[in-house]
């Protein structure tokens, strides 16, 4: 994770275009100023960042399903459960699957697991629009490269 840049996903483990699922990995930093305040003497990953991690995971899935032609944006967190604490240094496996593909919006289910055990889950709604400018598209392409996005999985 590069928390300071809000880039929370480290690498893509699996992308299944037929099943419309994705699995990614993200390691919580061992040290961050965030943990100095959340909480002193008892550092845990803030729930909002866990939700954002799930949203970014779904974002990569939606980018893939829309062939990198449209950009998803977080619209609503339908339900989110923080089932256990996440500590600095832990490695998260985040899974997402498409629940519904509407016109201009999509809904996904998401789970965060640590060592196979569920820590958080959420249902998240996104709106999506054509990329608003080439800069953002270029940035997402670079990010995709950095996290090992399997571009070969996309439509030609």
């Amino acid at each position, binding site marked *: 994770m590069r928390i300071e840049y809000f880039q929370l996903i480290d690498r893509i483990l699996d992308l299944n275009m037929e099943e419309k699922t994705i699995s990614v990995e993200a390691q919580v930093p061992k040290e961050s100023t965030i943990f100095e305040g959340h909480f002193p003497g008892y550092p845990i990953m803030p729930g909002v960042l866990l939700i954002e991690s799930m949203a970014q995971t779904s974002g990569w899935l939606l980018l893939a399903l829309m062939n990198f032609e449209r950009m998803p944006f977080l*619209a*609503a967190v339908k339900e989110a459960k923080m089932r256990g604490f996440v500590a600095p240094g832990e490695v998260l496996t985040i899974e997402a699957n498409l629940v*519904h*593909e*509407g*016109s*201009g*919006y999509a*809904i996904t289910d998401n789970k965060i697991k640590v060592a196979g055990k569920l820590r958080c889950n959420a249902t998240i*709604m996104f*709106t999506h629009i054509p990329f608003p400018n080439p800069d953002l598209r270029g940035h997402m392409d670079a990010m995709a490269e950095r996290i090992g996005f399997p571009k070969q999985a996309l439509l030609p």
Partner: protein
Amino acid sequence: MSSTFDQVATIIAETCDIPRDTITPDSHAIDDLGIDSLDFLDIAFAIDKAFGIKLPLEKWTQEVNDGKATTEQYFVLKNLCARIDELVAAKGAGAS
């Protein structure tokens, strides 16, 4: 079997916490019921699921923005229900 309007009105009432008896076929979802675009996505999701269709919200929005259609054509509930019936019929025709 309930009518399309009854199903849609129930969805709106439950999704947006609007009293069911205030929702009529002539209600405008935006102007009369005060439903905003994000809440309408929840309604669209529920309608998509209930009727097995995909409301073409982007197309409708584009038509309104381009001045080719009015919001009344799509967001007055009796008109919305007519569009839903058309989509359901088209789906049925496509499946046969």
